[in-house]
């Protein structure tokens, strides 16, 4: 079976830096939510940007539906692969509606402008991300949680079957963290291939199909949440101050704990 999105032997180093990503092989299937976790500087965000085609790997390559990703023109790539960034460099002074319409860039003909089907896609995306009631609000007025959901809505408007999501819960309270992951899990169940990069192993535990643990630019573990979120796997990466437990439904959780080391 051809993977939706596959990294083959990816290497990337920033200028004058140690290798951010060194020799990662990782394939993403349609219908799965793959969560990449790892400590700060483990190469998570770099890996996401490589998967998105925003960085060019120094060695190895990314394949989209079996074909090389870097051979696709930008518009074609954007129709098949959408990115939800962690934050924007500058918040545009537009309404939520106009902002989400930018997700249609790769679909809209320069001379015809946005058509009814584009506006339908925007409406559907706003509804799916549960931000329809914000559509006429200016982007600069939104709370962190609202902004995150609007960023997801813009990626949904892109109607790409593959979704790459960077730290979607970094600025969110507990309730909104759940809501965002619930939405991403639903998108995966609907058949999309969703890759999420996050610090939050516990959300990964509840929602991920598979978890990938990245450590110093290498894949340290890959498997179901129960396989990866274990002391033997996490302690070499995060150190000994960890407390493990089990949620009512049997999923593992892990907390940072300053208690006496074992």
């Amino acid at each position, binding site marked *: 079976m051809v993977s939706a999105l596959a990294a083959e032997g990816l290497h990337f180093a920033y200028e004058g830096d140690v290798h951010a990503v060194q020799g990662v092989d990782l394939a993403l299937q349609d219908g799965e939510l793959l969560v990449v976790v790892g400590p700060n500087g483990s190469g998570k965000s770099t890996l996401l940007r490589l998967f*998105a085609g925003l960085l060019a790997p120094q060695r190895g390559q990314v394949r989209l539906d079996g074909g090389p990703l870097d051979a696709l023109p930008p518009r074609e790539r954007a129709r098949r692969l959408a990115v939800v960034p962690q934050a924007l460099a500058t918040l545009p002074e537009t309404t939520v509606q106009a902002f989400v319409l930018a997700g249609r860039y790769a679909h809209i003909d320069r001379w015809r402008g946005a058509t009814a089907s584009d506006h339908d896609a925007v409406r559907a995306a706003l509804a799916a991300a549960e931000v329809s009631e914000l559509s006429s609000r200016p982007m600069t007025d939104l709370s962190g949680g609202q902004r995150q959901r609007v960023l997801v809505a813009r990626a949904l408007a892109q109607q790409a079957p593959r979704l790459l999501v960077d730290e979607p819960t970094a600025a969110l309270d507990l309730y909104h963290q759940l809501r965002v992951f619930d939405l991403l899990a639903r998108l995966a169940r609907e058949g999309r291939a969703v890759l999420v990069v996050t610090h939050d192993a516990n959300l990964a535990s509840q929602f991920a199909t598979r978890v990938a643990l990245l450590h110093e630019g290498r894949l340290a573990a890959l498997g179901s949440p129960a396989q990866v979120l274990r002391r033997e796997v996490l302690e070499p990466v995060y150190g000994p101050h960890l407390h493990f437990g089990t949620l009512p439904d049997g999923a593992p959780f892990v907390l940072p704990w300053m208690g006496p080391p074992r």
Partner: protein
Amino acid sequence: MSRRRLPPALLGLLLLVALPLLLVWSLSTGVAGGHDLSTLLRGVLAALGAGPPLPGTTQTIIELRLWRALTTAGVGAALSLSGALLQGLFRNPLASPSVLGVTSGASLGATLAILALGGYGPLLLSVLAGGASVLVPAAGFLGAAGIVSLVVLLAGAGGRVSVPALLLLGLAVNTCLAGLLALISALVLADWEVSRAILAWTFGSLDDRAPQHALTVWAGLAVACAAVPFVAWELDLLAAGEEDARALGVHTARVRRIVVLASSLAAAAAVAVSGQIAFVGLVCPHLVRLLSVRSHKALLPLSALLGACFLLGIDTLQRALLGDRALPPGVAMSLVGGPFFLGLLLSHRRELDTW
């Protein structure tokens, strides 16, 4: 959050009404006195080859003023459009053709061409060139495009240039170019013909403009305008960040190339017919954003339109007030634009202080 802003369509309409009125005012303003509307109309028609010329000096006076007015409006539009494009490209409200040294680059290119034509360069080049009317503006364009490309290169991959970095870059580029221009002027000081041609280019003038001046600037402007539909939405998307725009499917490298070429062409066309006129490219896009709109689809054409009205208005106003002691356009614009630039800098104090 919202201050009341003019709808872009209304601002466009106001400017479209203002431009012909300013043209008529400009045509009836001058040392030789004014004319009534029907005389003006017949004179303009005759100048365009659609009617008999007016008797005496009237026809000559109207034609001189017509080419001057059309050139001035075109120069204002071209500089303002160039400024709006550069501000979008570098995501920096202080970018403009003169601040970045683009107009100086055009001057240097043109100066080198004048030297070549004056016999200082390869003789073959001067023979091939035939007329200075093509070679000099073309060399000016190359100079302008060279400077914009240089700034793009120095700006690095991210594309966004902070205010302090932009000012320092502009300062460095302008200093280098001024040095080179001064060196060339010093070397050819003895050759009166070449010196005069270079001086005319460097300081510029809107006096004694002929049809080819108006044609040159409007042709450059037209080509630059043709680029607008290919970059307007893209520049809006770039404002949120280079990577974000790429993820949405924007071919950012191509957008940058088109903007570099269009802004250089517009600036060079303006410099080719009027010399360096500072600040139009800074002030006008800023006013459009302040009064009405930020989205480039409206900002770019409105900036061009406002630039035409603005320079034509200022030029006519100072001719009406000062008569035959009217200032060169570059000087007049500096008097208006210098304080405006200072004000802009003060409003960016915080960004400068934290740097």
